[in-house]
């Protein structure tokens, strides 16, 4: 064994073969605690869910479950409640994702300017993100209240008939969306601010020399330079939006009617109110499939590779 090999191998006395076996054993030992958790609580349920989705699952006697192939999937296609939940989820995503990205970007660019109390502003805009969903939802439910809510108190000063926010078919979902923007925008804001701060300043100075105005600099320097961060923020917010549950659960219980029932709420209901576990697992799988497609589409549209 040459000196160089000894240096690379580190162990010196051991041959390369037994060394790599030792690394293999240690590699597995170091990985094992996490891999057990990962295998049991993530991978296994994922596969199990796919299996369950092919059964009319018997919640009480799993062995008496009936294999129905793609029966759950075909049932889903003809299930108006599923389409309603999907539609509501899409509507919620459409309301929240662009708003979060635009508001987040606006706040990030604002805080990035020469402004006093920048640190305080940054903390304020980020802070709702550390709240649990039920705190955010409970507080906003009160703000929207028609009896003692702040919002309608002030609206009442200028209009005679302010909306019944959470009880209204028209306003319930937008109200939930506003709460969500307030609650979650901090995450995107911090990421966009970091991205903005890593745009090299000389690009702006060059653009200024070329006589570019604020808008041109925004369009030709800021946005292209922040492209990756913006797309990351879009994707992660889409993924969150598709999984929305807590806000409508606490604020409207999916109502009025079924107008704010989302996919995950419907999944929960299928499983725990109707004991239809196989069908619920199917909804979960379809939700995942949608998210995977969305992520892949985004990857190709925005490209991790067009750098």
């Amino acid at each position, binding site marked *: 064994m040459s000196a160089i090999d000894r240096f690379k191998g580190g162990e010196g006395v051991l041959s390369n073969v037994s060394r790599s076996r030792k690394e293999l054993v240690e590699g597995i030992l170091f*990985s094992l605690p996490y891999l057990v958790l990962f295998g049991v*609580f993530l991978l296994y349920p994922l596969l199990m869910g796919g299996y369950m989705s092919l059964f009319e699952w018997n919640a009480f006697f799993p062995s008496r479950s009936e294999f129905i192939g793609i029966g759950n999937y075909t049932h889903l296609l003809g299930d108006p409640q599923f389409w309603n939940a999907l539609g509501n989820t899409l509507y919620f995503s459409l309301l929240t994702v662009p708003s979060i990205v635009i508001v987040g970007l606006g706040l990030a660019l604002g805080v990035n300017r020469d402004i006093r109390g920048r640190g305080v502003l940054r903390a304020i805009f980020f802070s709702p993100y550390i709240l649990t969903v*039920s705190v955010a939802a*409970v507080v906003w439910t*009160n703000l929207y209240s028609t009896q003692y809510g702040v919002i309608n108190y002030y609206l009442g000063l200028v209009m005679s008939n302010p909306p019944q926010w959470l009880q209204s078919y028209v306003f319930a979902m937008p109200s939930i969306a506003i709460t969500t923007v307030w609650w979650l925008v901090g995450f995107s804001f911090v990421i966009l601010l970091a991205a903005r701060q890593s745009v090299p*300043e000389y690009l702006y100075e060059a653009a200024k020399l070329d006589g570019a105005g604020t808008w041109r600099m925004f369009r030709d320097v800021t946005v292209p330079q922040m492209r990756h961060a913006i797309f990351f923020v879009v994707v992660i917010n889409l993924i969150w939006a598709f999984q929305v549950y807590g806000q409508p659960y606490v604020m409207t219980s999916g109502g009025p009617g079924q107008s704010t029932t989302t996919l995950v709420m419907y999944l929960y209901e299928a499983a725990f109110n109707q004991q239809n576990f196989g069908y619920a*697992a199917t909804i979960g799988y379809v939700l995942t499939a949608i998210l995977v497609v969305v992520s892949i589409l985004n990857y190709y549209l925005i490209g991790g590779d067009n750098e």
Partner: protein
Amino acid sequence: MSNATTTRLESLLPGEVSARSVLVHAVMYGAALLFLMPYMYMISTSLKTPEGAIAAGMNWIPDPVSLHAYAGLLADSLIIGWAFNTLLIASTTTLLVLIVDSMIAFALTRLDWPGQRYVLGLIIASFMVPGFVNIIPLYILISDLGLLSNYLAVILPFAAGPLGVFLLAQFFREIPYEIQEAAQLDGFSNWRIYTRMILPLSRSILSALALFMFVWSWNQFLWPLIVLQDQAMYTLPIGIVVLRDNFTYQPSVTMASAVIASGPLFILFLLLQEQLMSAVEMQGVT
């Protein structure tokens, strides 16, 4: 001398304040006020008397200030128990994540063994799996294992998430290999390299990850709601919804419970904002 410095100096001169700068300040501070409004409502309402909280009109400063809602909660509800449960779950989860994630991240980046690439690939691919897909099979699994209404039911699935492994692996990879080689020449075992070198060198990312995991775990909602089937075992996020439903017409109680549920996190946030935000930034970078 950079351009930025000159502009900053100029904007400090009284006569030179541009209209644009005034506008930016007004917009940003206006937005900040809107962001703070829900907190102000929450705190001010929690300090009102039951009658004051539902009185018509909006008085931001409670008159009289009353601790009635807090006293009632502490005396007549399970909120102290819930707070304890939440703390226990969040800290155990965080500790578990730090240990197992750093161990596997070490194995994936600092050791050399066949198959590590596939393991890392599998873990990264699992990022695509949204938490909610798994709730049904996971629920059945947990119930088969006899873990319903056991804190492990909340802790273990959460600790199986891939985020920590991914962040730590990214960080460990950047630590120069020469240090490790020198230690190996000195006869250090891998365990010693892990505990005495890699972990201390990674203190910044470990604390950022710890904080993020703690906050996330503290805030879990749907999963604890499903598996903790006994009110005494609830966590604060679920508990305040129960309280809200029990005290529908007492917003002061609901808001006081919201203050209690978020208070500890706010203190943590005020102390450790930088770490928390850097954990978020790292997710954007990776």
